[in-house]
C-alpha cells in the first residue's frame, strides 16, 4: 500500500476505511499493539511506585512548560558553554534551512540520521534530498520506511504496519538480496549496509529525548546503537530538539528514564542512553571521543503557541513513548497512516490540529470514542480525552473568539440547535419523542436518515419502546 502522499489529517474517515480493507495491515496492527501492551503491563509490575512516578513526571513537565522561556535560556546558555552551537528555528522551513546550510558549510554529502520525530515533523529528509544530500536513516525501522518511500506509522515503531514478509520483498526489490523472511538474516543485511554508511558519513543528524537545562546535556535513547554511532562517528553532529524537550535538572532524568522505556517498549531501560554534553573540544585524554562540532537546532514550529494556551499546554508534556497508540482501540484497528499526519494515534489527534492548524486537521479530534485508555497509560498523565473534547469544541465554535469555525456543516449545526431546543424543555422533549415514535413505524424514515443508515450498515437498529418509562410515572413518585 503506497501512494500515501495524498493522505491528509482531514481525510481520516476515508483513510481509515482504506486501512480496514487491508487485512494484512489490520491483523499486524492488532498483533503488535497487543504485544506492546502486554510488555508494558509486565514492565510496570516491577515498579511499585508507578503512580507516584507519573505524578512526579507530570509535575516536572508542567512546571517547566509554564516557565519555558526561562529554562530554554538556561539550557541554551549551558549548551553554548559546553561548546555546542545553538540555533533557534521558528518553523519547519527555518529548521530545514539551518540543517541544509550546515551540510553545505561542511561540504557534507554523506549524511546519516538516527530516529527522530521532530525531523519527521519538519520533513527534513525531503528538504535535504532537494539539495542532493538526503540522509540515510539508520534506525532499522526508519530505514525500511525510507526504502519503501513511506511515512512512519508509529512514534517509536515506525514500520509497525509492515510484516516480515513485506520487508523481505522490499529488500529483494530495493537491495537485490536473496529472499528470506528470517528476521536475523534481514537484520544482518541491514547492518552490513548501514555500517558502510556510518564509516563514510561526514554529518550525523539526531533527535533529542530530553535536554537538561542546568547542564546543557542532551539525552538520546535507542536500542540499536545506531544513534550512538550517528552522534559520535561523523565529525559534525546536528541534533534537532523540540523546545518542549527541556527539563530543569539532571536528576529529573531519573524519573523519565524509569517511565519512558517501560511505557514505550516495555523495557526496563533502552539498550543505549547517550548523554551528550558538548563536542570533542580536544580535552587531553578525551580527544577523539565525539564530533568536533555539535549543533543544537531548537525547534518551535507551533510549540510556543501551545505553551501559552493554558488549557492545551499539557499536550507538550508528551515524551513520545507511544503507549497511547498501543492502547487506543482506534489506532489498533486502523494503524497510523489513517491519521494522515506524522504524529498518529491519540497524541497525534491532539497534537496535529495544534501544530498544523484546525483548518486542515479538524477531523482528528473526532477520531476517538473517548474511551480514555490513552489517559490511563500515559506516563505523564496527559488528560487526552479532555483535550480532545476541547479541540472538538474549538473545531465547531472557532479556535479564537470571532474566528470562523474551522469545521461546521451548517446542517449539523442546525440539527444540534434543534436538538437542544427540544431537549431543554420537558414538554418539547415529550413531543419530539412522540414524533419519533411515529417515525419509528415508518421504515422509510430510517432508511433515509444518514445516522440511521450509518448505524444500520453494520448493526440492527434499536427500537423505541412502545411507551417511554415516564408514561408510567406521571405522578412524580415511583
Amino acid at each position, binding site marked *: 500500500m503506497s501512494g500515501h502522499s495524498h493522505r491528509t489529517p482531514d481525510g481520516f474517515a476515508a483513510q481509515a476505511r482504506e486501512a480496514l480493507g487491508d487485512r494484512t495491515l489490520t491483523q499486524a496492527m492488532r498483533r503488535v499493539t497487543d504485544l506492546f501492551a502486554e510488555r508494558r503491563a509486565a514492565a510496570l509490575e516491577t515498579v511499585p511506585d508507578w503512580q507516584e512516578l507519573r505524578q512526579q513526571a507530570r509535575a516536572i513537565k508542567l512546571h517547566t512548560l509554564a516557565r519555558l522561556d526561562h529554562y530554554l535560556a538556561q539550557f541554551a546558555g549551558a549548551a553554548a558553554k559546553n561548546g555546542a552551537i545553538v540555533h533557534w528555528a521558528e518553523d519547519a522551513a527555518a529548521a530545514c534551512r539551518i540543517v541544509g546550510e550546515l551540510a553545505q558549510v561542511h561540504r557534507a554529502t554523506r549524511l546519516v540520521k538516527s530516529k527522530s520525530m521532530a525531523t519527521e515533523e519538519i520533513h527534513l529528509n525531503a528538504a535535504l534530498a532537494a539539495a542532493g544530500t538526503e540522509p540515510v536513516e539508520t534506525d532499522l525501522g526508519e530505514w525500511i520506511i525510507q526504502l519503501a518511500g513511506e511515512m512512519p506509522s508509529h512514534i517509536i515503531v515506525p514500520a509497525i504496519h509492515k510484516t516480515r514478509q513485506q520487508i523481505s520483498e522490499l529488500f529483494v526489490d530495493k537491495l537485490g538480496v536473496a529472499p528470506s523472511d528470517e528476521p536475523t538474516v534481514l537484520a544482518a543485511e541491514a547492518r552490513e549496509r548501514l555500517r558502510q554508511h556510518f564509516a563514510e558519513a561526514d554529518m550525523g543528524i539526531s533527535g533529542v529525548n530530553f535536554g537538561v537545562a542546568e547542564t546543557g546535556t542532551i539525552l538520546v535513547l535507542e536500542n540499536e546503537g545506531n544513534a550512538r554511532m550517528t552522534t559520535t562517528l561523523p565529525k559534525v553532529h546536528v541534533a534537532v530538539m523540540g523546545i518542549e524537550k527541556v527539563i530543569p535538572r539532571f536528576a529529573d532524568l531519573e524519573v523519565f528514564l524509569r517511565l519512558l522505556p517501560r511505557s514505550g517498549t516495555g523495557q526496563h531501560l533502552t539498550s543505549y542512553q547517550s548523554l551528550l554534553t558538548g563536542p570533542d573540544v580536544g580535552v587531553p585524554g578525551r580527544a577523539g571521543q565525539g564530533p568536533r562540532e555539535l549543533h543544537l537546532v531548537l525547534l518551535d514550529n507551533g510549540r510556543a503557541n501551545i505553551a501559552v494556551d493554558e488549557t492545551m499546554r499539557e499536550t507538550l508534556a508528551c515524551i513520545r513513548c507511544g503507549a497511547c497508540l498501543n492502547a487506543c482501540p482506534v489506532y489498533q484497528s486502523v494503524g497510523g497512516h489513517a491519521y494522515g499526519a506524522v504524529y498518529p494515534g491519540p497524541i497525534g489527534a491532539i497534537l496535529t490540529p495544534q501544530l498544523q492548524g484546525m483548518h486542515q486537521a479538524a477531523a482528528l479530534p473526532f477520531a476517538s470514542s473517548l*474511551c*480514555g485508555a490513552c489517559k490511563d497509560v500515559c506516563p505523564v498523565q496527559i488528560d487526552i480525552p479532555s483535550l480532545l473534547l*476541547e479541540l472538538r469544541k474549538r473545531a465547531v465554535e472557532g479556535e479564537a473568539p470571532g474566528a470562523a469555525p474551522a469545521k461546521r456543516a451548517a446542517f449539523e449545526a442546525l440539527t444540534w440547535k434543534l436538538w437542544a431546543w427540544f431537549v431543554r424543555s420537558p414538554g418539547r422533549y415529550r413531543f419530539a419523542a412522540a414524533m419519533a415514535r411515529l417515525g419509528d413505524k415508518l421504515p422509510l424514515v430510517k432508511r433515509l436518515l444518514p445516522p440511521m443508515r450509518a448505524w444500520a450498515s453494520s448493526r440492527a437498529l434499536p*427500537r423505541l419502546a412502545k411507551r417511554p418509562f415516564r408514561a408510567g410515572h406521571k405522578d412524580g413518585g415511583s
Partner: protein
Amino acid sequence: MPAPRPSRDVALFATCLGDQLFPGVVEATVTVLERAGCAVRFDPRQTCCGQPAFNSGYWREARQVARHFLDVFERADAVVAPSGSCVAMLHRFPQLFADEPDVAARAAALAHKTFELSSFLVRELGVTDLGARFDARVGWHDACHGLRELGVRDEPRTLLAAVQGLELVELRTRESCCGFGGTFSVKLPEVSTAMLDHKLDEVMEAPIDVLAAIDGSCLMQLHGRLERRGARVRTMHLAEVLASR
C-alpha cells in the same frame, strides 16, 4: 415480609436513552433501589444530561440542556442513574461551564451527589446482596466512562457475586471499548464496527449466555451487532440481572 425502612431518598435519573429505548432497565433500577431500602422519586421534568452535544463539540447547546438538568436535580439528596456515562458527564459540567464559575460550582456540588447505580449500592449504601437469582453464565463488559472516569470496576462484580445461580465469566477484552462513543458510532461506522467486532469475536466464542454492562448505550451497540451476526448471546443491563428472582 415488611418493607425495610427507606434509608435514602433517591431522585432517579432515567437517562434519555433509558426513558425512550429501555424503560425495562429503568423499571429494574427502581425495583433494585427499592429492595435496597430507598424511596425512589422520578421527576418528569427531566430529559437529558447534554452529553451528545458536548461530545460533538456543540458546547453552547450542551450548556442549555445541562442547565435544565441542574434545575431539575440540584435539590435532590442523591441522584442515581443506570449509566456510568451519563454520571461521568456530570463530572464534565465544570469543564463545560468553565466561563461561568457560579454554575460550575453548582454543577460540582450536584456531581458530588450523583451516582451510577452499582457504585451507589455498594459504596454509598453498603448493599451487596439484593436477593437476586439468575441462572446463567454472564460475561461482563466494563463500560469505559464508568471504568475510567468513575472507577467502577469492583462494584458490579461484588453485586453479581451475590446473585444465586449466576456464573461470572471474565473476558480477556472486558475493558476494551465497544466502539459506541456517541456520534462516533455513526460518523465513523466502519471504525466503530471494527472495535465492536474485536470484542464480539471473543464474546461469541466465550461460554456465556448473557453479556451485561452498566450502560444502555454500550448494550445497544453490542446487541445491534450480535443480532446482525446471528449470535445467541443476549445483552442485559446490570439492573435487569439484579432485579431477577
